[in-house]
Each structure stands twice: as structure tokens, then as C-alpha cells.
């Protein structure tokens, strides 16, 4: 199956590959071609673009509409260069090197073209850098600086032409800043197959709109924020709730707790100049306390809890389906911790909602527990608790505001803060995270396992679940089947992964689920079929296959993540994003996992304590169902007339 960042069908076929191979000289494919860039000759493989050849030669060519995850567009014209023999300038991002050619990247014509492109964009770009969310991290700003733009040769708009669309819980749209690079469109249609945005109109009246220009909150947007991650400017951004969180922190009456997820911890360093993949987990705990949070919890705790609840749910489904032959049981079971994926399922495949695990996401499980178990245990008035979650995710803002997420009697999670928002708060407080001393998470939810950490990467939930299921069912350590307990077949960035695990033997039923199944005999020798998909375009492939009764309809358990790469690529993570950056973040996550002493969810002492003290009926018991499980809404994809 293809890489999630290999785009689908939107672009003309001739542009779907970044290398354009012509067939008139088949013997040239694979050969080396000479290209002279600014007088320096190099040999490059036949068919690479001038942009790629230049990169290899250490020559920088500016781009705006180009993005490593996306089809080429060739619309901004920033990357135009002179190619000897061509009358017009050619865009380096798409022009292929197929025969020996001489390229000049900074002749007068090229420099004038770059200047004009930037000045034209600025003639329409209404907004000032100071007050912009992307100040300091804006591609237009950087290019204007690099290419010496010192005046608005074609003017600059004083008044905004468009109202900002703030209807969504998660993604805000400001067309005044849009440079019409089309990255958001290519992301939403090609990478995510959600299809919320497109170019509308013609000429200078082109705007990027939703269907019938309806507010984003009403469209089928799943809040994944992938568009935000790829927007070069401040036209798309996640909702900023830092003011409200500061207000809570400033209020002496409020007890402000924060849970932090693994993916932001592997990326927060990027906001402070560190290389992607440098975790700052424990430094960040210190920063959070100094910023004024009263307690710092580790979302891995509820990640482990999710594994127990969801794993138990899976076991029960399998038992009912395979042993009791109950035909009404929906299989495969889908994970449900990705709120972007959940909304995608609700819109596009609502008939499959019964397949979604009823378990809440770790964020929401924590929210419910904090305002009940934690409040009880430590004597806090839940009314005064402000529960914040640090997430890599923009959809979490939608999730925590879902009307059913109030099982504690209050809004379970008050704020889902993105990595970027918290980075902003740290900077406002003068906290340079990387240079702070390390400190631990707070009890009673401080302990975590490696299984919880890997939730941040695609395949992580699956691996965590399998580690637990394998050990509970076989009675053997998972290390005896997989080296170091690393279940490699479900790791990696392939768009859809499929694996089969045959259960070699069965052991006794552990106490934690002993009340639910009499024995494991019915799984002895069974082959568990699992799959992992990340990016909703890949989710679509799997779902369409299931609908058609294909291979994936015979799976037992499928992990779905809305974002390419899994949560580490989430809509709240530092910008920019690319396959390399996501891979670096994944390496950090898996190495954190390796370093943990405890690496299986069912061995997390805090989790076991919670079942002992609070969720005494055990996983999927009555209290669990009330606090840790949820229901979904069949939304369908029909959009109401404005």
C-alpha cells in the first residue's frame, strides 16, 4: 500500500510524481544526466527536477507552493529559474532534467521575478507580522527578508477584505493572509480525502472556500489541522486558548492540572531551536510548574488505561463473535482515540460506528478521572478544577467540547492545548524549556509505561494493545516472541500496514479479566489479523475495502489515526512538517519507549491501583462504562443548505 504522503487523484496524472519520466528515451531511465547550475556541473539521475538537482548541489531555490508531502503545483512562481534555450523562466519544482542543460538561478530576470512575486503577494496580503500567529515562522516573511523586499511596490491593503472564519472549535481561517498556494487544498483532498477546501472563482477573485462558503464548523471538516501544518502563512491556524488558560492559572481559586501527551514532548524542542526528535519531556514538567500549573500528569497513564479498557472490549467482542457465535458483533474493532478519525468515521462511514471502540481517548479518560477519582482522592472540589491537556492535536479542542464528554458532571477536559500554544505560553513566561532541570510527573498518575509513550506514533496503539493481549492470553512475555518486545510489523510510515499474529499457546486467564472469560482455549492457535492506517486517505482505502468485503473486513482490530505519521504529525505540532521531521519524532518516541523499565500497559502500577481503588468492577465494568466509555454521532456527509 502506498505511503500516505503519496497523493491520490487530484492532480493531473502528469504531475502526480515528483519525477517526470518521459517514454521517448526509455534507455535513459536510470541514467545520469549532466546539469550545470550556476556554472557548476553535476550529474543527476534522469528525470529529477531542477529543484532536487539544486538541493544536491547546495544551491538554494526559494519555493512557496511546494511542499515535500504534496503533489507539485507550480503556481507561486517563486522557484522560477533560467534554463538555457527556453524563452520563459521555468519552475524548478516541476521542470525535469532529461537532457544536458544549463540552469541559472539568480540572473537579473530571475531576481526580478522573485521580487515581483513577493511584492504582488504582499499587495494582497492584509495583516501585519507583529500581530500574526506566524510571526517568526512564516515562509512569506522569511522570503521577503531573504530577497530584500523593502517596499510595497504594488501597495499593501489597509483594510481586511474577508472576515475570519472562527466557527470551528479547532481550525481558524483568515483569507486576508492567504497567498493561494493551494497547499491546504492538496492536503485536504489528496492526503486526507476529506475535501473541505477548494479554489473558487477565477482570476484575482479566486478565494479558497468551503462548499458554498459555509462556516468551517458546519462543513465536514474533521479538525485534523493538517492544513494548518502546511499553510506557509497565517491564513490557517488553530484556535488559540492560551488567554483562557492563563486566566485559570492566574485565578488563585482554581486548581489547574495539565496532562501531557507523548507526541508534544518529542516535538516541543523544535519550538526552542532543537533538532526534531529531541525529547524534552522532563524539562517540560519543570517548565509547566514554573508557568503555574498546579499538577503535571502523564497522559501515558490513561493511554495504558485505554489499552486495558479497549483490549478488554476487543476480547469480549471476539469471545461473543467466535465462541457465542453472536452475529451482531461488529468486527473489526476500530480504535477511537483519534478525534479526527472519529469525526471522519461519523461523517463518511457512519454505518460503521458500531465497529468503533467505545473506549474514550486517553485525554478524555483522564478528564473524567481527574474530576472524580482524583478530586475525591485528594479532596479537591471538582468545580474548581481546570483540566488542561497538552496535545499534538487540533481536533482535541473539538473533542473536549463534545456534549457527551461530561461524565464527571462537569466538562471533563476544559482545554486541549496544542504544542504550539504551550510553546507560546512558555515563551511568554520566559521559560527556555531545554535549559531547565528535569523533574518528574505528579502522583497519583505519574507512572507510565513504554506502551503509553508509543501512542504518539502510527502503529503505537496497536503495538501497545498487542503487547498486552499477547501477554494476557499466552501467559508468556512478549519479548519471547518479539525481540525486546518491539512489534516491528506494525511500525513505520507505510500508509496501511497489515499483520497476522498466530497465538502459539494460551495460559491462565489473568485476574484483571478473569470475571469476563472462562479460559483462553478458544484463542489457542488463532490467527489475529490486524491493520494500521494513518492519514484519512489511507483510512478511506481500508474502509472502502471493508465495505467491499475485502481483506480488511476479516481483520479483528484496526488502528486508525487521522494524521499522517500518527499523533506525532498532529495538527497542533510545530510547523513545518515533513516525512523527515515525522521520522525524527518517531525515533524519539521509540527510544523513550526502550528506556522505560515497564513497557506494558497491564503492568502500570498506577493503572492497577486505579482498578483496585476506584474502578473496582474491573475493565468494561459499570463504572468504567460510565466514565471511560462513550457514544458516537452518526453525522453523515450531507451539508445543510446555508
Amino acid at each position, binding site marked *: 500500500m502506498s505511503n500516505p504522503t503519496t497523493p491520490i487523484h487530484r492532480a493531473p496524472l502528469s504531475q502526480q510524481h515528483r519525477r517526470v519520466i518521459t517514454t521517448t528515451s526509455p534507455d535513459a531511465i536510470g541514467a545520469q544526466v549532466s546539469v550545470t547550475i550556476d556554472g557548476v556541473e553535476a550529474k543527476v539521475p534522469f528525470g529529477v527536477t531542477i529543484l532536487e538537482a539544486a538541493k544536491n548541489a547546495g544551491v538554494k531555490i526559494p519555493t512557496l507552493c511546494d511542499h515535500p508531502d504534496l503533489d507539485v503545483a507550480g503556481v507561486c512562481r517563486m522557484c522560477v529559474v533560467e534554463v538555457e534555450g527556453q524563452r520563459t523562466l521555468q519552475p524548478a519544482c516541476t521542470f525535469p532534467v532529461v537532457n544536458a542543460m544549463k540552469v541559472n538561478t539568480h540572473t537579473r530576470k530571475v531576481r526580478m521575478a522573485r521580487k515581483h512575486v513577493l511584492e504582488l503577494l504582499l499587495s494582497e496580503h492584509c495583516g501585519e507580522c507583529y500581530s500574526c500567529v506566524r510571526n517568526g515562522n512564516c515562509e512569506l516573511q522569511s522570503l521577503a527578508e531573504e530577497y530584500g523586499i523593502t517596499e510595497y511596490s504594488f501597495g499593501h491593503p489597509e483594510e481586511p477584505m474577508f472576515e475570519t472564519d472562527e466557527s470551528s472549535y479547532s481550525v481558524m481561517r483568515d483569507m486576508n493572509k492567504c497567498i493561494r498556494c493551494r497547499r491546504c487544498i492538496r492536503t485536504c483532498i489528496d492526503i486526507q480525502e476529506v475535501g473541505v477546501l477548494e479554489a473558487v472563482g477565477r482570476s484575482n477573485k479566486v478565494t479558497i*472556500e468551503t462548499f458554498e462558503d459555509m462556516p468551517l464548523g458546519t462543513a465536514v471538516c474533521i479538525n485534523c489541522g493538517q492544513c494548518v501544518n502546511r499553510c506557509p502563512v497565517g491564513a490557517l491556524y488553530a484556535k488559540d486558548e492560551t488567554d483562557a488558560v492563563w486566566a485559570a492559572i492566574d485565578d488563585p481559586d482554581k486548581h489547574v492540572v495539565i496532562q501531557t501527551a507523548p507526541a508534544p514532548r518529542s516535538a516541543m524542542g523544535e519550538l526552542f531551536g532543537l533538532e526534531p526528535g529531541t525529547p524534552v519531556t522532563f524539562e517540560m514538567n519543570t517548565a509547566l510548574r514554573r508557568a503555574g500549573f498546579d499538577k503535571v500528569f502523564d497522559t501515558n497513564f490513561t493511554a495504558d488505561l485505554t489499552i486495558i479498557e479497549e483490549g478488554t472490549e476487543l476480547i469480549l467482542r471476539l469471545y461473543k463473535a467466535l465462541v457465542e457465535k453472536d452475529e451482531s458483533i461488529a468486527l473489526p474493532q476500530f480504535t477511537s482515540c483519534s478525534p479526527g478519525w472519529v469525526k471522519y468515521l461519523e461523517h463518511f462511514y457512519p454505518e460503521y460506528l458500531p465497529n468503533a471502540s467505545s473506549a474514550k481517548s486517553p485525554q478524555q479518560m483522564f478528564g473524567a478521572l481527574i474530576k472524580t477519582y482524583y478530586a475525591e482522592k485528594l479532596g479537591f472540589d471538582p468545580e474548581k478544577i481546570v483540566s488542561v491537556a497538552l496535545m499534538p492535536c487540533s481536533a482535541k479542542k473539538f473533542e473536549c467540547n463534545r456534549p457527551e464528554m461530561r461524565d464527571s458532571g462537569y466538562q471533563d477536559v476544559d482545554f486541549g492545548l496544542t504544542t504550539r500554544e504551550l510553546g507560546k505560553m512558555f515563551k511568554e513566561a520566559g521559560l527556555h524549556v531545554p535549559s531547565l532541570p528535569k523533574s518528574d510527573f505528579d502522583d497519583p498518575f505519574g507512572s507510565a509505561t513504554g506502551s503509553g509513550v508509543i501512542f504518539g506514533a502510527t502503529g503505537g496503539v496497536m503495538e501497545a494493545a498487542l503487547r498486552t493481549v499477547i501477554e494476557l492470553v499466552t501467559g508468556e512475555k512478549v519479548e519471547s516472541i518479539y525481540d525486546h518486545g518491539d512489534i516491528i510489523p506494525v511500525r513505520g510510515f507505510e500508509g496501511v500496514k497489515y499483520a497476522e499474529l498466530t497465538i502459539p499457546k494460551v495460559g491462565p486467564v489473568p485476574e484483571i479479566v478473569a470475571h469476563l472469560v472462562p479460559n483462553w482455549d478458544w484463542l489457542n492457535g488463532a490467527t489475529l489479523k490486524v491493520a494500521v492506517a494513518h492519514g484519512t486517505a489511507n483510512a478511506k482505502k481500508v474502509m472502502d475495502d471493508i465495505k467491499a468485503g475485502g481483506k480488511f473486513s476479516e481483520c479483528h482490530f484496526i488502528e486508525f489515526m487521522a494524521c499522517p505519521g500518527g499523533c506525532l504529525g498532529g495538527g497542533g505540532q510545530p510547523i513545518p512538517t515533513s516525512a523527515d521531521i515525522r521520522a525524527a519524532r518517531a525515533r524519539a518516541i521509540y527510544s523513550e519507549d526502550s528506556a522505560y523499565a515497564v513497557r506494558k500497559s497491564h503492568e502500570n502500577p498506577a493503572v492497577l491501583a486505579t482498578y483496585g481503588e476506584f474502578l473496582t468492577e474491573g475493565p468494561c465494568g459499570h463504572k468504567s462504562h460510565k466514565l471511560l466509555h462513550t457514544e458516537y454521532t452518526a453525522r453523515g456527509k450531507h451539508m445543510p443548505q446555508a
Partner: protein
Amino acid sequence: MATTTLQQDQLRTEVEALVEKLGPGRSSLIPILADVKRRFHAIDSETMQTIADVLDIHPVEVYSVASFYAFLHGAPEGQFVVRLCGTLSCDFAGKDAVADALKAELGIDFDQTTDDGLFTLEWASCVGMCDQGPALLVNDDVHTRVTPESAREILAACRAAAVAKEG
């Protein structure tokens, strides 16, 4: 109002029949939109979503394509779309006087539709009658050497045709 909206299931049947005739791929999109526009003088939200569903593309893509083409944008239009050529040769030949006459006669400005839903007035880019301007199109029919007087006659003929159709 000139537009007619269909019930959901009838709409779907109509769209599916068009796809049957024109082919299942996206290549049928523009002919389908043109057909809908011609018959119903508008392409509304429900229609676009049905077309999107049948062709297996996103509704916003249908909306985007319709918005690009001058003859396809989805906003409701009158029974008679009057397009006056604004390009140079027709300008030299006196399109301004014709424009004034049309506006006065219909009581609307360009890019508007009369209240009775009969006429929409639009500018057109060169319609290829440069030797016989001013030229205007009324739906698919072309009229040349149009004068303020003949423009009024054309409108009157349209009104008569509309009445005859009703009867």
C-alpha cells in the same frame, strides 16, 4: 421564481441518468452541470452534493468547478440569460448604448436578475461576432448588430415566448 428544485430521490435519478449517458468518470462533470443549469437555471447545494456523490468526488470540487466557468456558476439565473459582449470591436460598435437600453428596459444592473425571474443580465467576453457588433447572446442564440431599439425587441420576443410557454 424560475428555478425548480427536485425532490432528493428524483434528483438522484436524474443525475444518475445523465451519468449513464455521459460516463461515470469526472469527465462528465461539466456536461452534467451545463445540463442542470440549462434546465433549472441554477445549480443548488443539494444538486451539487448529489452530483458529487454519484461521481465519487467531493462536493466542494463540484462547487469549485462550477464557480470557474462563466456559463456554469451555480447562482440562480433567469429563464433568459442575456450576455452582452464587452470586448473592443463591440465596444467600438456601440455596446454602451445597448447596455444602457438593456438596463433601462429590465430595470436591473449587470449581474442581476429581474424580480419576475425572466432575465439575467451579464457581460460576456468576445463572442466571436466582432465584424457584426454589438453582439449579444440570449441563452444559446446570438444576435448581431444590436441597437437599443433591437435590444428592446429581443427582450419583448423573449417575454412573448415565456408567456406562450406558460399557456
